[in-house]
């Protein structure tokens, strides 16, 4: 054992238990936990900010409307239009709500005092993923017909016949089972891991500089603090990226259901 391991002996790295929250106060209902409160708070903030930006939109934008339009145009130009083309405007309500809510919930991970990305509880990504999944299948059957939808999905034209023996089950699995699963888990896992990393480095800094300061451990504590700051910046990027990616995949699934892939 190295000396470092000796000092670190009674240091406990934070585990998945940091995602378990008790009810907010004694006697509170069992479901009223911090993530639940933050989920509701986030929804309210998104509504309030969007209201201040878009309630009475002006031809010449001012203040919040500028900010809101930036968000709107980002979702429209980077997410909706590439995958939905002329149907982009029609799906903007869903995509915009999705993006704004996920983005704010993700950013809760680095906002002081809140510091819990709501999507690190898998139930929330599941809600989004199931919503998109239902819309995807509904649209696919509506626009391509029940047979047509599955035929287009499992038997894309222009391949040698024996390939389909292999391809059809893979496509079926990937579209109907794996896609919604990864859709939810990608967002969840990124937020979960990111929060764990931040918790770990801040714990290192806190432990070795305040809890058990030793000459040997101080250097490690400093590294922990520096890494916490660096990872917070990185997390902000990941949080944005995952919100963007989730919305983009939603637009892609919807677009594929509206028009069969060729």
């Amino acid at each position, binding site marked *: 054992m190295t000396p470092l391991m000796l000092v670190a002996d009674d240091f406990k790295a934070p585990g998945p238990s940091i995602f378990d929250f008790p009810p907010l106060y004694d006697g509170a209902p069992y479901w009223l936990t911090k993530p*639940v409160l933050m989920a509701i708070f986030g929804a309210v903030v998104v509504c309030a900010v969007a209201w201040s930006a878009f309630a009475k939109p002006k031809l010449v934008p001012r203040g919040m409307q500028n900010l809101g339009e930036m968000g709107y145009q980002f979702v429209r130009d980077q997410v909706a239009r590439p995958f939905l083309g002329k149907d982009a405007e029609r799906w903007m309500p869903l995509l915009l709500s999705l993006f704004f809510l996920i983005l704010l919930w993700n950013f809760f991970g680095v906002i002081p005092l809140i510091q819990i990305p709501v999507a690190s509880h898998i139930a929330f990504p599941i809600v989004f993923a199931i919503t998109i999944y239902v819309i995807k299948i509904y649209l696919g059957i509506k626009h391509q017909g029940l047979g047509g939808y599955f035929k287009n999905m499992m038997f894309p034209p222009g391949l040698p016949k024996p390939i389909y023996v292999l391809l059809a089950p893979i496509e079926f699995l990937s579209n109907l089972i794996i896609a919604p699963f990864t859709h939810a888990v990608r967002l969840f896992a990124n937020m979960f891991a990111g929060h764990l990393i931040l918790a770990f480095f801040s714990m290192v800094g806190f432990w070795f500089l305040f809890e058990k300061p030793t000459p040997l451990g101080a250097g490690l504590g400093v590294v922990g603090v520096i890494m916490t700051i660096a990872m917070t910046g990185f997390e902000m990027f990941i949080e944005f990226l995952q919100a963007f990616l989730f919305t983009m995949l939603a637009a892609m699934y919807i677009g594929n259901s509206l028009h069969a892939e060729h």
Partner: protein
Amino acid sequence: MTLAATFLAAEGESPLIPHAYELVVGSFAFLVVFLVVGKILTPRIQKTLAERTEAIEGGIKKAEDAQAEAQRTLEQYRAQLAEARQEAARLREEAREQGAAIKAELREEAQAEARRIIEAAHAQIEADRQQAFTQLRGEIGRLSTELASRIVGESLEDEARQRRIVDRFLEELEGRPEAVR
């Protein structure tokens, strides 16, 4: 103690199993956001953005129209200016022609007048000459008759006498200058 071991030790329930109440809260939150942001607010900003596009396009159209109008007016002015210049040139030319014509006419008239005056003078001179000639002729006749009668009355005896008569006659003639004027 490794990190993985800590993970396993701390694991109560799998983070991959969703809490039912969080599914409910998540659905509710998403529904509220979708209704407020998606259903109420997004159409508003879409409408505004469409209006803005229209306004900008309308503005561009208007500017283009104005420019075309200005261009048309400019062309019109240029055409009018060219026309006016042509007109002026034409008038100048006409005036010059008229001036030349007037000058020629005046010269013609002046020459005619001069000719007329000269002719009148000639006629006058001729008349005067004729008159003088007639007068002179009468005078000469009368004088000749007088001279002849004198010569005959004096009974032409000698040459000396005749010469004297003629000299006297001539002296008399010289004494009446008005007769030969």
